[in-house]
């Protein structure tokens, strides 16, 4: 009888060595740790220099991909606390409208409206979501789905903030050729900041709330405060993305609350892989350009896009990034299966 084999998955020796402080032992171990990070930072910072190759259109696509990446990172942080949001356009829209309104009616410069919209927007969103933090799972998701729609209808019905026409001819962002760098820097700061946060003891509590909130309560930790803080921290990049795109397009309107800004971050995280932030980033930087390149197919675009999503979620349910990470950290080898075991 032919021997049967099973696949065995083992950590590479270098992974075990570089898991801890021993990483400093050699340049090789150091490179093993630093390579993926440098690849990301270098790759992102090089993009604006490729204008000659890519052309202005694709640079703009990358800029949009970066704003979606900010939303996806934000979505991933909320999901790490167990809050699944179906209405991420709430954060995006609130940030957009605050920046737009401040610039339109008070004439504030974008240098001022960006930080103000980011912080004030995050505060407003946290206050809006605070009452529903006691809800979990699908109930929380359902209400977040309703909140941006509510904003849309209020703006439509009361005709405040420009009503259906929105606020136009806003100030452009200063330093035009370098605009892409602003959003790239935001993505990098947000990405590494979140990674650090979730690895700290504070982040540990956030992940524990996702795992089992009753145990966290029994440990004397006010989970509602922590959830509210998580919402605020998660809202920051999303409101920034909204304010940024408002000034980039020089117009803000009701589409800022549209479903697109809720669904794209969600699909980015699902395709890229939840929980590591790298997956969210990768997903957004892949999905947005792919969706743009499908424009040539006209109405078939949505069909092709959906088929691709289905293939990804069925074929790689863990997400692209966890798959790549596994390949980087582990190797597989066939092991003969012993008789009788």
């Amino acid at each position, binding site marked *: 009888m032919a021997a049967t084999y099973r696949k065995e998955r083992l950590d590479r020796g270098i992974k075990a060595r570089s898991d801890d402080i021993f990483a400093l032992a050699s340049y090789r171990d150091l490179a093993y740790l630093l390579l993926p990070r440098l690849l990301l930072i270098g790759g992102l910072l090089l993009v604006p220099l490729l204008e000659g190759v890519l052309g202005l259109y694709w640079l703009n696509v990358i800029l949009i991909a970066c704003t979606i990446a900010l939303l996806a990172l934000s979505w991933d942080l909320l999901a790490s606390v167990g809050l699944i949001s179906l209405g991420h356009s709430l954060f995006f829209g609130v940030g957009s409208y605050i920046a737009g309104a401040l610039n339109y009616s008070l004439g504030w410069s974008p240098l001022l409206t960006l930080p103000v919209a980011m912080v004030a927007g995050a505060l407003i969103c946290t206050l809006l979501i605070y009452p529903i933090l006691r809800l979990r799972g699908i109930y929380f998701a359902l209400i977040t789905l309703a909140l941006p729609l509510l904003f849309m209808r209020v703006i439509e019905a009361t005709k405040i903030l420009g009503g259906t026409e929105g606020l136009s001819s806003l100030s452009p962002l200063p330093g035009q050729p370098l605009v892409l760098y602003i959003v790239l820097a935001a993505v990098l700061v947000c990405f590494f900041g979140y990674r650090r946060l979730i690895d700290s003891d504070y982040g540990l509590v956030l992940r*524990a709330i996702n795992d089992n909130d009753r145990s966290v309560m029994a*440990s004397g930790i*006010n989970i509602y405060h922590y959830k509210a803080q998580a919402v605020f921290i998660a809202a920051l990049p999303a409101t920034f993305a909204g304010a940024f795109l408002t000034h980039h397009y020089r117009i803000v309107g009701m589409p800022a609350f549209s479903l697109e800004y809720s669904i794209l971050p969600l699909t980015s995280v699902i395709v890229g892989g939840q929980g590591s932030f790298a997956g969210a980033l990768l997903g957004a930087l892949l999905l947005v350009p792919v969706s743009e390149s499908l424009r040539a197919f006209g109405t078939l675009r949505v069909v092709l896009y959906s088929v691709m999503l289905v293939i990804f979620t069925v074929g790689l349910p863990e997400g692209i990034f966890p798959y790549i990470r596994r390949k980087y950290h582990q190797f597989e080898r066939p092991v003969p299966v012993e008789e009788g075991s």
Partner: protein
Amino acid sequence: MSASSILTVSNLTKRFGGVYAVSDLSFDLNPGEALGIIGPNGSGKTTLVNLITGFVKPERGGRVFFRDRNIIGLMPYDIANLGIARSFQMVRPFTHLPAYKNLVVSLFSPKVRKFKGGKYGDRDEMAIDLLEEVGFERDSFVPYKAAGSLPHGYLKRLELARCLALEPDLLILDELFSGMSMSEIASILPLLEKIQAEGTTLIMVEHRLRELFRIVDRVIVLNFGAKIADGAPDEVMEQDEVKRAYMGIEVEPDA
């Protein structure tokens, strides 16, 4: 209520629909006392624990005083920070986190942070020390494994360690021994005796009577949510009503 008691439960009632899970229950607990709560399945033992720790709200009129302060209406985390720690009968670990990181969550709670302090990394050390105390092998890989992949006996001890991390004045253990092997229980008993000797007040809800009676000096027997006996273990177990309700022994068939 007596002035010296650490915990006073008075007229506590909880109804689920038409069923009285706990009905008009009152008792006092002195500091340093070890109280066992026993009773058949469904007699309201876990509901009583949930009522004291704020996970379930009682019917109107019930009061629980902890050091002369009414704690009914407080949230579970506020009660935990007052110094009452509880374990869960169904273990509730953070399955995705390594065992020792489970304890870091407790060590990060406001009360513990205040008197223990500690930066990032310090709490990892404290957690490993605590795990060793409840019987995790310090130098093995066990404390570093994901809690979800640990055997049940370890999870029970992890649950106990999570409570000890809070350095409680009142420790409520909800069926700590259930699902643990004899040798595991034997290894944990000296620790419980030590905790009690150090002055921690203890409430143990338990079905394993022999092991329970090694630790507690007083037992309350519940049946259908009501207290049917209260006193020293051997006296209580001699009462006919207790035998009938708890052991299912018909003492006097014609009575």
